[in-house]
C-alpha cells in the first residue's frame, strides 16, 4: 500500500502516461528552477505535438529548448522567448506557434486554472495586440480584458525539498512559477534536490501542499546560470 507516498524511482515512471498532443505546464524562470531531468525525459520519449506553457522556452541546448531540437513542440505559451535562436527560427518558418502572454497574466492563468476558476478580468494588455478578440468589460470606469485560465495534462516543477507525501519547499528565486504550475496539472510531477520523511518539513513553511503533487523524483541538477554577474 503506497498511501500518500508519491516518490518514484525512475524518470520513466515520473513521466509515464505523457502522450502526443498533451499540454505540459512547466515551472521556471529562464533556466532558474527548471525540472532539468523531466525535460530530458520528455526529449528521450520523443513525444510530439506538445503544447508547452512556461514563462520562457529555455536556451538552444538546455532546458525546454532541447525539445525544439526534434520539433516536439507544436505551440508555446510564454511571456518571453528572446533567449532562444532555434525558437525564433522555427517561429519564422511557421513550424511552431507561439502565444505571447504577459508574465503576470501567465502566472494568473496557471493559478486560476489550478483553483478551478475558468477565466478572469485584468487590465493588463488592454488596448494592445494581446486584447485582440477578447471580451472587454468596464469595472469602476476602467476597461479590463477577459483572460481564460490554463490547465494541462501534465505539470512539471522543480523544488528544493519534498517529503514523501509531495509537500514541496522551494529555494530562493527558483520558486518563481513552480507553485502555480504545480496546481494546474492533472498529473503534477516534482523533481527535487532532496527527499525527506514526512514530518521533517515544518508544516507552516511548506510552499506547495502535497495534494497538488502526484509524483516526486529525486533529480540531479546542473543549475546552469544564464547571466553570471558579480561585483568583484
Amino acid at each position, binding site marked *: 500500500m503506497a498511501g500518500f507516498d508519491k516518490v518514484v524511482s525512475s524518470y520513466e515512471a515520473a513521466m509515464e502516461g505523457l502522450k502526443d498532443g498533451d499540454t505540459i505546464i512547466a515551472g521556471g524562470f529562464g533556466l532558474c528552477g527548471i525540472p532539468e531531468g523531466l525535460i530530458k525525459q520528455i526529449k528521450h520519449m520523443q513525444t510530439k505535438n506538445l503544447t508547452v506553457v512556461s514563462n520562457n522556452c529555455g536556451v538552444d541546448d538546455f532546458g525546454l529548448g532541447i525539445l525544439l531540437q526534434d520539433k516536439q513542440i507544436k505551440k508555446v505559451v510564454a511571456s518571453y522567448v528572446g*533567449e532562444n535562436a532555434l525558437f525564433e527560427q522555427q517561429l519564422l518558418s511557421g513550424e511552431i506557434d507561439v502565444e505571447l502572454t*504577459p508574465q503576470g497574466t501567465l502566472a494568473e492563468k496557471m493559478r486560476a486554472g489550478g483553483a478551478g476558476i475558468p477565466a478572469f478580468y485584468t487590465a493588463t494588455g488592454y488596448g494592445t495586440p494581446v486584447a485582440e478578440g477578447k471580451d472587454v468589460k468596464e469595472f469602476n470606469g476602467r476597461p479590463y480584458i477577459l483572460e481564460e485560465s490554463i490547465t494541462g495534462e501534465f505539470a512539471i516543477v522543480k523544488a528544493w525539498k519534498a517529503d514523501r507525501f509531495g509537500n514541496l519547499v522551494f*529555494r530562493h528565486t527558483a520558486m518563481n512559477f513552480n507553485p502555480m504550475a504545480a496546481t494546474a496539472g492533472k498529473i503534477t510531477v516534482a523533481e527535487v534536490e532532496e527527499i525527506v520523511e514526512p514530518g521533517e518539513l515544518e508544516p507552516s513553511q511548506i510552499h506547495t501542499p502535497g495534494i497538488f503533487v502526484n509524483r516526486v523524483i529525486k533529480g540531479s541538477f546542473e543549475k546552469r546560470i544564464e547571466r553570471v554577474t558579480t561585483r568583484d
Partner: protein
Amino acid sequence: MALSREQVAMRVAQELQDGYYVNLGIGIPTLVANYVPDDIEVMLQSENGLLGMGPYPTKAELDADMINAGKETVTAATGAAIFNSADSFAMIRGGHVDLTVLGAFEVDQNGNIASWMIPKKLIKGMGGAMDLVAGAKNIIVTMTHASKHGDSKLLEACSLPLTGVNCVKKIVTDLAVLEVKDGAFHLLERAPGVSVDEIISKTAGKLLVDGEVPEMVF
C-alpha cells in the same frame, strides 16, 4: 549637450522618494539603482519574485537559485522577501508598487507606450512590461529623445504595437524631462546646454512649453 545613460539614470533617481517600492526595467532603468540618494531608502522589486534586491554577488556568493528578472545573478538585501510569480504580479497588478521605470521604443502624447515588439524584426515577448504599465501607480519612461536617424520617439500616436494605453506620466530622455497629461507633452526641464528649439524640433507629438524652461540640476 545630450545626457549620457548614467546622467539619465541620475535624473530619474531624483524622482525616488523615501519608502518607495520600485521596479526597474532592463537597460538604463537598472542603472538608477546606482544613484539612490543617501538620505532615503527604497526597495527594489524584481518581478521573478524578489522584493529587496541587493547588489550583484561576489564570486564566492554566486548562487544559481538567486537571479533577477534580467536573469542576472543577484543577492537579497537585508529585509528582503522572496515569493512566487502570482504574488509578485499581485504586487504589480494590484497597484502596490510605487514606481516603475522602463525603457520604450515610442511614447505618444496620450501616454500610450510601445516597448516590446517591432513587427517582422523583434518578436521576443513582453515579459512583465504589460503588467507593470497597467498596474504601477507611477510610470517613468527612459529613452533617447530621437532615434539614431533623428526620428522623434515622442509621437502624436505610437506606430508600433502598444504595451499599454494612457499610462505614462513622465519621460526622461537624453534631452529633456517631460510630463504627459491632457493629450500633450509638457516640457519641464532641459538637459544642460540643450535649447528648447532643439527639443521642439525633435518632438513630433504635441509639445507645450510654458515660460522659461530650467536646466536639469545634478
